[in-house]
């Protein structure tokens, strides 16, 4: 599904952030990536999403080198095959909950019937006509999960999705995320600092200067 091949990336000022990174992720896997601040977790997600390009190396999504795609093609790929869940939710304040969830479907030009199903799945079936300002943080992240999965993406990228939530709500959201990713047959990458959050993934990876390594049982990052 996703293959990182000797990926190198340095910041504009020359500081190297990812060096010789290689990894292969199979379809349907749900992995958590942990690592120190500044080690390049966000940069890695941007590279995978085609929002940034590696200095060298290749990132393959289902056999397609993402760096070979121009901006439109990369956007098209994201639109069809990716789902995003952000720490700050990023739902559009002037769209209703249902409209926010429907966005990827509209972008892909497909029917929006699935919105109701997704809202039911994330427990917001009675909030579709509400505006984001009328929702709690947990509810907003549920909207984001529904939006990330409504169009059957192949790959879901989640960055600290529970960073803004209380522990109980965070636990609820993480369980929901896992359930929904699995139910939709998607591959998931969860970037987090939280061990509890990471524990909901199939596997936990540590991102270090040396690359991506499976975390050993009981290892604290």
């Amino acid at each position, binding site marked *: 599904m996703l293959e990182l091949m000797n990926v190198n990336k340095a910041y504009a000022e020359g500081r190297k952030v990812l060096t010789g990174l290689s990894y292969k992720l199979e379809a349907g896997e749900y992995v958590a990536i942990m690592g120190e601040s500044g080690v390049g977790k966000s940069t890695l997600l941007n590279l995978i999403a085609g929002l940034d390009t590696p200095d060298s190396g290749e990132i393959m999504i289902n056999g397609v080198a993402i760096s070979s795609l121009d901006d439109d093609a990369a956007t098209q790929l994201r639109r069809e095959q990716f789902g995003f869940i952000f720490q700050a939710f990023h739902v559009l304040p*002037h769209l209703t909950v249902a409209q926010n969830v429907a966005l990827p479907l509209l972008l892909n030009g497909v029917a929006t019937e699935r919105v109701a199903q997704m809202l039911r799945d994330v427990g917001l079936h009675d909030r579709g006509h509400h505006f984001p300002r009328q929702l709690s943080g947990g509810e907003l992240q549920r909207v984001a999960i529904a939006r990330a999965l409504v169009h059957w993406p192949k790959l879901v990228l989640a960055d600290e999705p529970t960073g803004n939530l209380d522990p109980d709500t965070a636990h609820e959201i993480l369980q929901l995320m896992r359930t929904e990713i699995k139910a939709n047959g998607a591959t998931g990458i969860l970037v987090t600092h939280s061990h509890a959050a990471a524990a909901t993934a199939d596997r936990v990876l540590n991102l270090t200067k040396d690359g991506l390594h499976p975390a050993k049982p009981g290892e604290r990052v």
Partner: protein
Amino acid sequence: MNTAMLSRWLLFGEWRAHLVQVTVALIAIAIGVAMAFSIHLINTAAFNEFSAASKSLSGQSDLQVRGRKTFFDEALYPVLARHDGVAVANPVLEFDVAIPGKQQNRNDHKLKIIGIDMFRAMRISPDLLGLVEEGKTLDRLADDAIFLSPAAMEWLQVEQGDSLQLNAGLQAVTLRVAGGLVRARAGQRIAVMDIGSAQWRFQQLGVLSRIELKLRDGVNHAAFKAKLAEELGEAYWVTEAVDQEKRIANMSRAYRINLNMLALVALFTGTFLVFSTQALSVIRRRQQFALLRVLGFTRQQLLRQIMTEGGILGVSGSLLGLALGYAVALLAIQLLGGDLGTNFFPGVKPGIHFDPWDAGIFFAVGLSVTMLGSIIPALEAARAKPALALRSGSEDTAMAKLSPPWFALICLSVAALFTQLPPVFELPIFGYLAIVLLLIGGIALMPRLTAGFFSIVLAKWQRHRSGAVSTLALARLANAPNQAAIALGGILASFSLMVAMAIMVTSFRISIDNWLGRVLPADLYVRAAASGDLQTDAQKAIAGLPGFDRVDFFRTQQLTLDVNRPEITLFARPVDKADARNTLPLTDDMIASEALPENVMPIWVSEAMVDLYGYRVGEKVTLPIGVKSSEFLVAGVWRDYGRQFGAIQMQLADYQALTGDLGVNTVALWLQPGANLDAVTAGLRQLPFGAALEISRSSDMRALSLEIFDRSFAVTYLLELVAVVIGLLGVAASFSAQTLARVKEFGMLRHIGVMRRQILVMLAAEGGLLTALGMVLGFLLGWSISLILVFIVNPQSFHWTMQLHLPWNWLGMIALIMLIAAALTALLAGRRAVSGEVIRAVREDW
């Protein structure tokens, strides 16, 4: 916490980060202040110079005696000279003469000649004395000598010793330029002669224009004036210098105030821009401000912080505006003259003077409107609950407080009420206030209208089609109407004002064109030179020429009915007795000819006479025509765009019967079918007095009148353009600020697969749809304002009415240009939305 330092950091940080928005707001304030200040400077300079030039002609007299008609019998002079209390009486004869060769410019072909008694003038108006060559003192009394001001010499291209040919009635007069004047103002074109010579040479024997009086020491001026007025009776006016000033000020007051109002409109549009810039800047930083509040910033500190920003913008913009306004005024005076091409202040070459007090007032106005534009968003930010404001998505709800619908409805209702109120001091104050309230109310109602309209469009759109970009654009417009309305404010203000001005100017122009057709029905018009008349033999000679179907003779003269007002014009002419409408452009307010009582002399008065002198149809009025004043019946009201201070038409036969004056000064000639215009013109020229005639084709007069009209309104077109530029700057500033505020939204959209061009299409659609709605609403608002301009401001200012005409093609073209300009502006302002920054904006969370 060193709050001053924090305040500085916040201030400079904001300006560094958003230099373009701050610069645009600064420019808008500067342009608004500059326009208002420059027009004030030009008007003041021209008016002061015109007033000073007029006063310089009357010297240091205590009182002046004038006739109700332009000239009066000189027999009054010895009476006044011997009157108790009078130290010196100075007789003056003042008239205009036509300059041969300069007649192609009908507005600028006359030279003012002042006939004075050199010995008396020495004590009252010494500036008017001629400068003679050494040893030629008697030139001042010579019957062929004329003394010219420097401006007159330059205009006529003559020097001391040269001959100068002038037209006097039907004869040419040749005079010798004997020298200059002791003192004349820059640009003042006058000539001075000995009064006896002037009377003789220019066929004005036995008449005077005024007698200037210097009273003996200790004489009470007011008491003497009242006593003399009583002695002289109603045929004369006794005036003081202050009356003269009032009269001069009255002449151009409406023009000056209307122009100032237009300039303030530009400033008003700038206020909306400042408001939108500040409001959007506050919306964008709502979370920052909430954070500051959480960290310990008090409400007052926050309020002060935002007001300081507005204040610094206001101070800098206003100072820049004053400098710019001064420069514009200097340039405009150089290029267009003191009256900006309208001929309101003829023969005046004013200089711009910087008055610190005036500058202070305009600075204060600029600063006040900026602070006004800042206070509402500042109050909102200070009152916002930090916990709520920290959450994104509350921005639009916050701005909803800025435009409660009741406020808009109150403004609109009061505006409607104000349209029904009469003028104040003969000025349409309530009319202008109604326009301002209409604009404020209209703009305040925008959020509701925007939300309502786009909600309907969105619902209908989604029923038939479902595109992401269209949904995004429409949903934003429908659900974030307050931010949309802020962006719309500037464009709405400028477009509606432009629509209003365009409708008013078009209505005026078409009305004038129609009116010219009515008042210039003949093919040719012939006038005697400025100071002369056509006596009966000349009239017979003209009427006897071949090629004419009909010949009408007119007698025009000036009458003073109120000492504080400019003179009115009396037209004596043959008026169709069967139906006066065949001769005059009458309004519906008239008595039908068959209903006119016998043995009354009918007059038809212009609309200005109704407004200024209270004349009513059916009323009997007394006018100083003839030896004694006579009674006339007001038989109708006619539309007159030529004389805003009043005019009266009467039958020529009545005039001649009352005065015994058989001379005329205008002849209207209708050609026989098939007659050649050039041939009949040549026939007129071949008459013995033909060379002294001013012959004009009505088509030329009509074209010239419209040319003057267009030149007069050139400055209003300029002001409209400025308002539009400010409006577009507003769109640029609003969209740019909104793009900044929405950077995370664009970032998220880019993440989930919205392409760059789709974001650009979305922004262009938002800009275009918003502007299109602005155009429609702006048209409705502008049309309402034009009704106020056409039916309230114009009649109350200039005392004429007109019919409403809408320039559809022009409005359509302007709307299209504005629409494209606004969409492009939105696109340009939104180009940041597709830059890499938006992706980083979302990545901040990663």
